[in-house]
């Protein structure tokens, strides 16, 4: 986006230009990005681990040291976002500089350079993430605020610098249960005495993860099925479309609830898979239609004539051209996956070990607490709206009829 002047605009640049003109959608994109930043950087603002800690045994940084500690961040979702926070940020900054620096290069080599930069960033980060996941670290979980209280009572207060909100979403304190909003707890506490604001912010991570991963899974499945059905047509198509039809005919929320209820030990990952298992038919139909339309076009015939393999025709020639509508439906898909997940949590069919917005809302309904109803409700509303507006803008940008 820094410079699209020198060369002829590519298809992507045209779409981007169209998209930028839709102010609301453009703003929504930044909104979604903001949510993503909140999800990634929440530990900087909310954590019960001090950045700096000195209890007389030297200066240490429990905050940094526990970023990948399973005793502190038990859930894979947190580990994932923390990896974006730490090696992620460290990688993106130099990469951004290199990216910018490459602007002076001429067209072709600039693109190649930028591809390499992006590849390196993703590669290094993925390697870090896999390493972290493969070798989990656990240490004795020190509850620093409590240690601090003890030391202070003993007359030797430690040096401790905390993030602005010194709680974790898992902290509980029954003496402080069900408090209203206050300076210490911006949104008050829930029945367990946990800080609601902390739970809300970390809930962003849960929602975004469910949305992105569920959609990634089902877009992959759906695209494959649709591509195969659309490219080969005939009997393959008939069989695959029959399956699609069957899945479509079962009302999806009914199916999701039934399946979720019958899985007795469900985690947030099950929920992603269940959502994906029901939703893949949408992209499958889209991609199939695009393939049907395109398989007889000239460029495909040309590719066939030049002896390209089937796989490369499907994946390298046709698929990239069919991805526009898929991208749009994916954006709406993220929104609806977030809605489905929160609905399931609301109905008590979610994963209770993660702070999900739907679950907070269910607790609010139970405890008769306005804060616990409004905060998660508005958060879901905001996230879903932003995604829907973004998807809407993308759709319009991709629609040649609306190009002005």
């Amino acid at each position, binding site marked *: 986006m820094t410079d699209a002047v020198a060369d002829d605009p590519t298809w992507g640049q045209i779409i981007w230009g169209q998209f930028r003109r839709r102010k609301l959608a453009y703003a929504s994109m930044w909104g979604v990005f903001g949510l993503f930043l909140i999800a990634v950087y929440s530990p900087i603002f909310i954590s019960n681990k001090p950045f700096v800690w000195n209890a007389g045994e030297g200066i240490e940084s429990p905050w940094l040291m526990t970023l990948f500690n399973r005793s502190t961040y038990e859930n894979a979702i947190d580990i994932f976002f923390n990896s974006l926070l730490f090696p992620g940020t460290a990688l993106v900054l130099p990469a951004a500089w290199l990216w910018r620096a490459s602007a002076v290069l001429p067209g072709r080599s600039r693109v190649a350079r930028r591809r390499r930069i992006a590849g390196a960033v993703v590669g290094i980060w993925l390697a870090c993430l896999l390493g972290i996941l493969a070798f989990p670290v656990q240490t004795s979980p020190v509850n620093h605020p409590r240690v601090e209280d003890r030391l202070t009572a003993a007359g030797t207060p430690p040096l401790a610098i905390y993030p602005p909100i010194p709680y974790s979403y898992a902290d509980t304190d029954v003496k402080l249960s069900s408090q209203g909003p206050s300076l210490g707890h911006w949104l008050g506490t829930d029945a367990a005495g946990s800080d609601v604001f902390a739970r809300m912010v970390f809930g962003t991570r849960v929602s975004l993860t469910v949305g992105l991963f569920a959609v990634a899974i089902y877009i992959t499945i759906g695209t494959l099925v649709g591509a195969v059905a659309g490219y080969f047509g005939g009997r393959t198509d008939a069989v695959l479309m029959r399956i699609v039809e069957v899945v479509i005919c079962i009302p999806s929320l009914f199916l999701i609830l039934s399946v979720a209820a019958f899985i007795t030990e*469900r*985690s947030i990952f099950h929920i992603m898979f269940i959502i994906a298992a029901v939703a893949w038919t949408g992209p499958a139909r889209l991609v199939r239609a695009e393939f049907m339309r395109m398989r007889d076009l000239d460029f495909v015939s040309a590719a066939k004539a030049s002896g390209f393999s089937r796989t490369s025709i499907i994946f390298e020639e046709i698929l990239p051209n069919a991805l526009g509508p898929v991208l749009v439906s994916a954006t709406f898909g993220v929104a609806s996956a977030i809605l489905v997940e929160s609905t399931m949590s609301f109905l008590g069919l979610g994963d*209770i070990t993660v702070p999900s917005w739907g679950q907070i809302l269910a607790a609010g309904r139970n*405890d008769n607490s306005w804060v616990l109803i409004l905060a998660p409700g508005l958060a879901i509303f905001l996230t879903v709206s932003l995604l829907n507006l973004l998807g809407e803008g993308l759709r319009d940008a991709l629609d040649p009829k609306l190009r002005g």
Partner: protein
Amino acid sequence: MKRLLQSGFGVALLALLVVVGLINTAQLHNLESHVAALEAGGLRVAGTPAAPPAAATGSVGEKAGEICTLSAADEEALNDPANLLVPFRYPENWPASIARGGTLKRQIASEPPGLNLIASNNSADISELYKYITSRIGYQDPTNPDAISPDLALKVTKSEDGLTYDVWLRKGVVWQTPAVDLNDPRHAWLQAPHPLVASDFAFALELIQNPQVVGRAASLRTYFEAWKPIEVVDDHHFRIRVAEDLYTNLPQVFDLEPMPRWLYRFDEDGHPFDDATWGDKQNTHWYNQKGIGLGAYRFVEWQEGVRLTFERNPTYHATKCMPANFDRVEINVMKDQQAWLRNLKTHQLDYTQIMPQQFNAEIRGKLPYLGEEGLKLAIHDEASYYYIGWNATRPLFADKRVRKALTLAFDRAGLVESVFAGLGEVTSGPFDQRNPCYDASIAPLPYDLEAAKALLLEAGWKDTDGDGVLDQVINGKRTPFEFTLVIYGGSTEYETLARVYREALLEIGVKMTAQPLEWAAQLKKTAERDFDAYTGAWVPGWEIDLHQLWHSSQADKPESSNYVSFRSPEGDRIAEALRREFDPEKRTALCHAFHKLIADEQPYTFFYQRKRPMLYWDHMNDPVFAKLNPHRDARLLSFATRPE
């Protein structure tokens, strides 16, 4: 990633009774119905009534000078020294004045699965609704469960060898008219009045023992299994024969409720069922969605999703002692418990129970007026206790020091005070705290993380690898102290409880994962002993029998109730002695010894005994709460002044 996934899954567990109440509407139904299953069939075990109170020989029902027995012959039967029934007395706190008539409006959280007392599925609702329309052999004094006075029977005696019970019925007791249109020629066969006869009891036992009958019969069956068929001596006298002389026989005798043979053995047109398949027919009997009985109220209609209606039974036999205080009783189906308080305030209800969160949010600290002039609050005990069960067959929990440490780390008082709105009493043993069996001198363990750590260390648990989780070499393998706690699915209170407990455990180096499970899944896990720990609850019943829950013979038997595989030779001895001990003082001594043993062994972490708040308008008299099923008996409620 794999590890992460695993932490999401976990092992699991189960629970026998359920846990608590509240929650989302759908869950409540389940929950309460399991509590009821226990109350109705589960752990009830009883004893002979204690020696009759001092006034036994005097006249009866002193209040207002009413005499409940009817004739001289009746009086004579009642005064037979062999009679196990004691004269009727009004419960303590019986209101001084009662305004009879009017309509009582109350609510129920879910609809019953049917209204056939034996063939419909068990649920809280059916036992509760049936209190309105049934009568039993004897009337159990609500405030003194040991005293049983005449109801359908005037006299019950027990033979020398303890194997035979004779029951003499009151004469002139008539079944209620069925709730059908008697003018419809199809139902003309039901027109004649039907007196209660001894064979109705024989029929009830046949129903329970016929394996074709499912529903509630299936859970009752275990308790009546050892009974031989009832011998009908004449229309008003029958004989029950049991296999063994046990303390629990008598309460079982009083639990048998008659069933109208003249109704349930026939199809809608009055044709009798085949002998071969009549049991099967009960499951889908045409009258199963309606109720019938001999009690103070008569079933009128059931409007699905709206309400059940009862009216004063015109043929009720005990009108003089425990009459119906209302002309009508309307039981509104209100699945959303948040709605109860509001419907109370708008006078759609005369009284209601309040759930802990709502109590916390809207009532606690706002006494005495609650924002509405004329609303009153009463808090009563419930007989159930809640606990966490530890699977003793798992190496983690084999050591009683470990179990004690886990109890010490569980902030029971803090949770009761916050999450459960102070509506309960932390408890230390497997009995109702009001039962003489409960030894009040045994205090619950305190909440003390340091002591818990010390006990775990003593039991050999140390964090040797610095991962924050204690470990120990078990069977040659280094095992970290990690376990899964099964909690009741859909209960926000239990989710909260799990979060609080989990954090405390983490501090002493124990890693716990909570797994919410629906009832069916929990039952499967407990039955298969496939769990580490689970949250559960029992309604221990008034007449204590320890066999089912605590005897080692039940430990390995799949599907028996000793889920935690508790084994103690001393415990077995006490359990067996208690079954055959009839002397109240010796029984209490045995119970106390057992309580001490349990407190030392900690097979369960005992949590609390629940209390529940009830709100009512001041046009009602202060309610008399029965000790066992506080809300079950509409005869204990009355208006002080008739509502508008």
